């Protein structure tokens, strides 16, 4: 009993100390009602220096909150109860949020610097005329390989993943769209296919892949490839650029028969309570210097063509990450398939995972 008393008194004392500390930290950061701008973004997906700079320039206080997947972010905003002023979803999620009327149409009279964005990344199918979203970063899905273990000549196309020499050495990204998409692409079909026959064909083709698959993972691919745990992986260009920085034997290929191009765009959700702050932040990010600084920090491809002029040449001339037009023309954006086909894609993918060996 004594023990219990000592413990509980100690705990209550600790709680009081922590409470006071927390209060103090909050007030010292100057968060008050109307000057707070709440940004809901992926973790570590902006240069923290930029947030500080923004706060100094504009006087807004930024509250940076994070999510770990588009779907989780969607659920959170849809349910409400939060006051997010800006968020940065991927394109298929923007389409879905538009359909659910969760976004505020952008008022272009309040936006300065939109002309800095490369016109190739504007007015795309998922958001015609960019009514709701402004490009933040973009990239592709491709194959990364290690030249110590495989000959680069042999790894240029999706079909190469099925080669016998890659037995037990391929890592796939854990996403139904990615895996089924690459199977569809490898046969020259669209990765947004809603044709049941084509999907069944893709499933049959995937059933032959398991012998080559070492693991189906996600963010950890980066670490595994740097570590040389696997010789080949299917991954996103943003991830790949960081891998290349850490291991000189790695190379990134965008299969020429077609692949996915993705965009993370800035949107203003209806939960916003500080719309002026949101526009101020969008304008801030459109400034070429800021966009360049952010691109250097994160390592993804920036859609800001003025910013590209400020980046070191070896970055922007790297065709692995800033591919030429003829490659980009073969790339497709994921479309929101609708609930029914998302379900079908996922069932095929689950079946594929279960049949691995």
């Amino acid at each position, binding site marked *: 009993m004594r023990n219990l008393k*000592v413990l509980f008194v100690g705990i209550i004392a*600790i709680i009081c100390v*922590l409470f006071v500390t927390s209060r103090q*930290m909050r007030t010292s950061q100057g968060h008050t009602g109307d000057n*707070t701008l709440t940004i809901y973004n992926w973790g570590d997906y902006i240069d923290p220096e930029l947030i500080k700079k923004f706060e100094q320039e504009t006087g807004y206080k930024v509250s940076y909150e*994070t999510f*770990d997947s588009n779907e989780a972010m969607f659920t959170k905003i849809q349910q409400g109860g939060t006051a997010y002023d800006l968020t940065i979803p991927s394109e298929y999620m923007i389409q879905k949020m538009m359909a659910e009327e969760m976004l505020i149409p952008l008022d272009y009279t309040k936006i300065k610097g939109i002309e800095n964005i490369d016109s190739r990344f504007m007015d795309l199918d998922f958001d015609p005329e960019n009514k709701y979203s402004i490009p933040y970063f973009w990239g592709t899905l491709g194959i990364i390989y290690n030249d110590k273990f495989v000959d680069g000549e042999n790894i240029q196309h999706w079909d190469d993943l099925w080669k016998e020499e890659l037995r037990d050495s391929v890592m796939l990204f854990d996403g139904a769209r990615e895996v089924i998409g690459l199977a569809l692409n490898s046969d020259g079909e669209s990765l947004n296919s809603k044709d049941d026959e084509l999907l069944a064909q893709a499933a049959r083709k995937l059933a032959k892949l398991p012998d080559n698959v070492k693991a189906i993972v996600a963010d950890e691919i980066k670490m595994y490839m*740097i*570590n040389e745990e696997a010789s080949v992986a299917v991954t996103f260009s943003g991830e790949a650029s*960081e891998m290349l920085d850490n291991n000189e034997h790695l190379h990134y290929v965008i299969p020429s028969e077609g692949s996915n191009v993705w965009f993370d765009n800035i949107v203003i959700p209806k939960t916003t309570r500080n719309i002026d702050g949101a526009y101020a932040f969008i304008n801030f990010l459109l400034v070429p210097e800021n966009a360049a600084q952010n691109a250097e920090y994160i390592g993804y491809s920036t859609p800001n063509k003025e910013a590209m002029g400020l980046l070191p040449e070896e970055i922007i001339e790297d065709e692995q990450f800033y591919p030429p037009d003829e490659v980009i023309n073969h790339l497709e954006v994921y479309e929101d398939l609708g609930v029914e086909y998302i379900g079908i894609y996922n069932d095929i993918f689950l079946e594929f995972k279960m049949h691995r060996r």
Partner: protein
Amino acid sequence: MNKRKGRLANLYLFMVFVLLYLPIFYLIFYSFNAGGNMNGFTGFTLEYYQALAEDTRLLGIVVDTFLLAFLSALLATVIGTFGAMMIFYTRGRKNRNVLLSMNNILMVSPDVIIGASFLIFFTVLGISLNFLSVLLSHVAFSIPIVVLMVLPRLKEMNPSLIDAARDLGATNWQIIYKVIIPFVTPGIIAGYFMAFTYSLDDFAVTFFVTGNGFSTLAVEIYSRARQGISLEINALSTLLFLFSMILVIGYYFISQGNTSKKQKSLNKSRQEAIDTL
């Protein structure tokens, strides 16, 4: 007990501790790695500790995380202990099993379901998402483990103790306070620690019910995974780990000092009885 057996037992315990602490020391070791990642140690550096000291955002989150863990575990322990007593004093094995199954539902449910249903629940009730909603959720999912820790202890209690207390004229609250609680104290402490652990570790539930500037360490760490986890997090874990180590050892010796001599001699006689094995 013969000596050889004792040594084997100690060796076994030693191995278990090595196993439990292996990944922790791995993390600590690499927090000093100049190479910037957890593969291949290239040189010693303290830069991640420096970066951590300057990262007020992360430090604020740490304070909030611990405030939440200490407080939610405390509330969960109080409610859970009484809950265990309620289950224990419910008549009929069947009824007890029904209650116990209900108790365990939150333990079996994946975090995503719990998080999503709490989110719906809070928004339906119009509770805004902030520290309070996270606190309520953490209390909610920690209660079952407290019950599971306290209940076995209650079952071992000799019912004649209570009868004796009642014969001596103790009121119900006195019985609870003077007889039952002291007897189940180890279970309560264990329950508190487990609840604390659950709270610190939880990612998915917190993620769904948090908002308006409140975040916890787990949410921050998981959402940073897309970019790869910086060794700054390793540095933070190292500091937190050492801090909790000091806290635990400190608490132990304070509470030891407070244990009455009578208790000690009782422990001793118990120890001797066990040692005769």
